[in-house]
């Protein structure tokens, strides 16, 4: 039996969670798979609380301490778990009313990245907020987890910004490379997306191959009954794509992600990060 894939929506207890859930519901309907809402509880056992500075140890000191610490942590976990459950249930109701599909919820202990990585094989698409819980009190314009997750996970990842708006047209930042070609193939093979006009945009320096690549993309989508326009706009990809999104009023961006090594990104900056920062629309990054 083939495992039923799902859209995995990663939520935390912030306002962004409801947008994540909305977009996950949208993606799930388009991909015809169910949604699972995942809340990862990061336990910080390296931080202590409940301090006794008497410096004295009595009979069975170690056993008593172990009991006290595990009891305290147990109680704290219960509170967090209960809060999480209530808030996940709210999101589930919201999701189910959008999709009409059964929605699963799950809370896991652990690190976000490794928890997501574990589930990779059963996920059709991840959905996460570009910023999260700590957004209001940090100045970062890209959540600290986003880059690590997009680099490590070999599945389409939709990162969403504020406010849900059902996408009406899609812009593909196409570079003719392996990843975006896969992206075009995936798009073309999904008939549920046919009602959305697709804009394929290539940028950068014009080379001999670029015309051919663009033509291939256009042809591939046309034969799958999509409404397509394809264009080559020379210039810096970040600016070109941002402008193209605005001009064409696209509200979903699909692009390849992190094709270069982390070292190169450290020196030259990452184009993917730049685009994620600049684009105001939800983005599906492909790092397959």
């Amino acid at each position: 039996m083939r495992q039923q894939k799902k859209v995995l929506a990663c939520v935390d207890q912030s306002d962004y969670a409801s947008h994540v859930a909305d977009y996950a519901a949208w993606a799930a309907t388009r991909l015809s798979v169910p949604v699972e809402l995942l809340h990862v509880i990061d336990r910080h056992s390296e931080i202590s609380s409940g301090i006794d500075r008497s410096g004295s140890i009595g009979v069975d000191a170690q056993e008593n301490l172990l009991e006290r610490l595990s009891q305290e942590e147990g109680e704290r976990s219960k509170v967090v778990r209960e809060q999480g459950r209530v808030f996940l249930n709210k999101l589930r109701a919201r999701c189910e009313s959008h999709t009409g599909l059964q929605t699963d919820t799950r809370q896991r202990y652990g690190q976000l990245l490794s928890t997501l990585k574990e589930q990779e094989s059963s996920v059709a698409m991840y959905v996460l907020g570009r910023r999260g819980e700590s957004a209001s009190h940090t100045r970062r314009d890209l959540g600290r987890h986003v880059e690590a997750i997009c680099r490590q996970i070999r599945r389409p990842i939709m990162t969403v910004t504020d406010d849900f708006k059902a996408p009406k047209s899609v812009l593909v930042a196409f570079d003719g490379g392996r990843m975006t070609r896969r992206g075009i193939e995936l798009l073309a093979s999904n008939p549920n997306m046919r009602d959305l006009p697709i804009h394929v945009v290539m940028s950068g320096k014009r080379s001999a191959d670029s015309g051919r690549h663009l033509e291939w993309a256009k042809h591939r989508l046309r034969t799958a009954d999509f409404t397509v326009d394809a264009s080559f706009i020379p210039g810096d990809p970040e600016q070109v794509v941002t402008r193209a999104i605005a001009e064409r009023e696209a509200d979903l961006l699909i692009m390849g992600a992190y094709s270069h090594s982390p070292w190169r990104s450290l020196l030259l900056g990452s184009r993917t990060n730049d685009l994620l920062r600049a684009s105001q629309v939800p983005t599906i990054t492909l790092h397959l």
Partner: protein
Amino acid sequence: MDTIRQEWFSNTRNDILAGLVVALALIPEAIAFSIIAGVDPKVGLYASFSIAVIIAFTGGRPGMISAATGAMALLMVTLVKEHGLQYLFAATILTGVLQIIAGWIRLGELMRFVSRSVVTGFVNALAILIFMAQLPELTNVTWEVYAMTAAGLGIIYGLPRLTTAIPSPLITIVVLTLVAIALDLDIRTVGDMGELPDSLPQFFVPDVPMTWDTFAIIFPYSATLMVVGLLESLMTATIVDDLTDTLSNKNRECVGQGVANVATGFIGGMAGCAMIGQSVINVKSGGRGRLSTLVAGLLLLIMVVFAGDWVSQIPMAALVAVMIMVSIGTFNWESIRSLRTHPKSSSVVMLSTVAVTVATHDLAQGVLTGVLLSGFFFAQKVGRILSVTSAACDEGRARRYTVYGQVFFASADRFSRVFDYQEVIDKVYIDVSRAHFWDITAVSALDKIVIKFRREGTDVEVIGMNEASATLVDKFAIHDKDGADDMLLNH
């Protein structure tokens, strides 16, 4: 980067305060252990400083406290007495080198052969040894010493009922010192026990002849120190793992202990290791990260160097009270209650570990005894997982024996006795496909059985020998035979 931040700075405030509590608790211990080893308090204090500071960086278990310890001090007594201090420093360096090698060859993994009962025995023996080491301070002394010690214990255990904001051992020491000075009591003080540090430690090479003879003298001591140091460190690491619900890197800890001991030898300190009692105090006081260990080491040295005159006035009775607390806190009292409920073999292992250690004052020998005994008991128990069923077949002309379970040196004898050689029969089938033959003893037992049957004129056919003897190969693959698991559960 993330790990550095997490291990060092995620719990800063509590780490610093816990480090302070530990530093205060370490001073009396370091002095007391120097006295056990028969060296100046300076040696133990320098050692505690350098080990704590270095292990903060090199250790594999954040939040664990390492310093000069009683377990190690007890092993150095004869070396110091017969050869002098410089040989102790050389032995300390060699201990460190051996520990680094042990870490590299992943000796830490051997810890899995040390059973729960042996660990309990180790801890109890350690507590008893620490307590016994205080007895010389309590024999042939005036009543004032007893009164002071009793008052000290009263403060240590009474004060936390009133407030847990200040370390009660510190108050004990301050109060008893003031009382002794005020009443001008004629009792022994720390100053009487030897030299205290008056400056920061300095680097020097131990003044021993670099010859084979020197090596031959210090090697046996270093080898024992290495074993005991790693044992206590790894046990303590497991305890801290449990308390904080986090994992540690045991092999990194071995290397870290080694580096700390090498450096300690070069600044005139004695070998040390992790301390169970102090690590519990650290975790209890809120210490979780590496910072707590670093702060403990640094503050210890600062306090001792700058308050040296005061430290020398501390009456020994106050130290004895603190050490009695440490020994009571280290002892596993639960293990006495559970003597009645635990299996006899576990109790025997635990008690033998304690008995051998207390008799020899050497934790390494105690642990070795415990490990050997637990291996012995285990072999005996597993040897019982063996059953043979038989049924006549072929209209009484043949008999089929089916062997289930573990055949090895401890069960081979019983295995060969279950066959009925007197039976008048043409043929015997021995089906061993559901048994495990673990060693050569098992194979030769089967050979003998076959020969015995042949002498009676009975043909023998052994079935499934290949499956049964797959376990013979030392590096056997994990193979699951039908029913193997069921059998383990049924017995």
